């Protein structure tokens, strides 16, 4: 039996059996520490992510209605009838972008999901009105053609780390501005792993690469923004949201046409009475999202940068890479 003095162990001990016992104890302790860490991370996110979105839901929703171009083009590239999930759907602004798809949204915030449902119903009603107008007016105009309405209301409340979606059932998944709210790297990678599990695997025998997952996160490199974040800066931040009292009834007010990231982000001088909520963000540095995709067992298909955000389209690793030319 090899003497323990020959093993480069960090634990000084008299015998190999003791080493093993200590290693086992260390592993157990590490597991316990991880579980504590995970519980702490969860509690932290409850305060600095979930609680904030519950509190700011209507105001937040009123500032989020314009789809990001990279997301909109991903959605319009999907085949008609494709099934997709929007994990962290917020107010559901992506659910009706391409009416030939069937999409189900999920979000951790009950308030945002309720708003998304309401929004979908309104779109449905408006669509119906447009269709009726088209019918009564043969000259037509643009119209929605009827097919453009129907499914924009399918939403559930769910945690991104415990998704209720049938595995391998989706043609695609989008996850926009969500993963950066997870407060440890292992949780961010686990969130991506969960997304990858939702989509179909590619086939061996044909060019089908399987379902695609689009992940979109805030970038550390925001050279053009007024936030002043750039390469080399702090990546884990609490970002204030000022709940403007004048905007508590978003329905009554039309928000100005503005880029999606700007609205309400604590940039203007506000009266002292406006409450400020701080949301946790992990700002992704260049290349980090790709690393997390790989760690989660994914393959990067394409990636890019769009106005202060990094995005990646990923798939699962092919079942047998040797038999596939690509």
């Amino acid at each position: 039996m090899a003497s323990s003095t020959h093993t480069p162990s960090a634990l000084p001990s008299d015998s190999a059996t003791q080493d093993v016992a200590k290693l086992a104890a260390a592993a157990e302790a590490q597991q316990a520490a991880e579980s504590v860490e995970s519980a702490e991370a969860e509690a932290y996110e409850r305060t600095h992510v979930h609680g904030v979105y519950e509190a700011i839901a209507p105001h937040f929703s009123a500032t989020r209605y314009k789809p990001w171009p990279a997301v909109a083009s991903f959605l319009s590239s999907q085949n008609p009838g494709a099934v997709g999930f929007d994990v962290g759907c917020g107010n559901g602004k992506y659910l009706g972008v391409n009416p030939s798809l069937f999409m189900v949204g999920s979000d951790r915030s009950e308030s945002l999901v309720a708003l998304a449902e309401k929004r979908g119903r309104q779109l449905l009603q408006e669509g119906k009105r447009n269709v009726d107008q088209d019918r009564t007016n043969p000259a037509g105009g643009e119209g929605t053609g009827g097919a453009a309405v129907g499914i924009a209301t399918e939403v559930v409340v769910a945690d991104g780390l415990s998704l209720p979606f049938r595995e391998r059932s989706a043609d695609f998944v989008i996850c926009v501005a969500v993963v950066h709210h997870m407060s440890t790297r292992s949780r961010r990678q686990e969130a991506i792993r969960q997304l990858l599990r939702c989509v179909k695997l590619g086939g061996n025998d044909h060019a089908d690469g399987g379902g695609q997952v689009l992940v979109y996160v805030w970038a550390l490199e925001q050279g053009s923004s007024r936030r002043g974040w750039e390469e080399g800066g702090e990546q884990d931040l609490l970002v204030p949201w000022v709940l403007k009292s004048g905007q508590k009834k978003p329905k009554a007010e039309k928000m100005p046409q503005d880029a999606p990231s700007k609205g309400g982000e604590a940039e203007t001088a506000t009266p002292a009475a406006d409450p400020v909520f701080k949301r946790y963000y992990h700002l992704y540095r260049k290349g980090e999202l790709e690393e997390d995709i790989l760690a989660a067992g994914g393959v990067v298909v394409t990636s890019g940068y769009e106005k202060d955000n990094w995005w990646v389209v990923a798939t699962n690793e092919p079942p047998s890479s040797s038999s596939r030319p690509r």
Partner: protein
Amino acid sequence: MKVLTLNFLTCAARSCKQSSDSFPLHPKEAELASDDVELNPQLLSNLLPRLDWNALRTTSTELGFPALPEQPPTLEELESDEKTLKDLHSLLMETNLMEGKLVCGHCGHEYAVKEGIANFLLPSHLV
């Protein structure tokens, strides 16, 4: 929540993912409502191959609808048989689960459905 959506939902608990009993979820004390949705034959035939037909049969029966055939209709049948098309449209697109529960057949957890929205947040012992 549409019956169509139920075909893509399973138990959120990690320990249930590997069990075939966790899908489909079983409606309990279900209150249904019917929406008037424009018939979209193209969307239906595109969705058909993406459905888990056996699960849909179970759901349909559990909600008290007539039993569906063992095999899904072929695309040709769907195009030529208007009744099949309309029945499927009515079940998948127009029938909504508004209130009640969705029960996992593996762990027994009941997910509440309120105002058409199911809540899949888990109690901490199931996470």
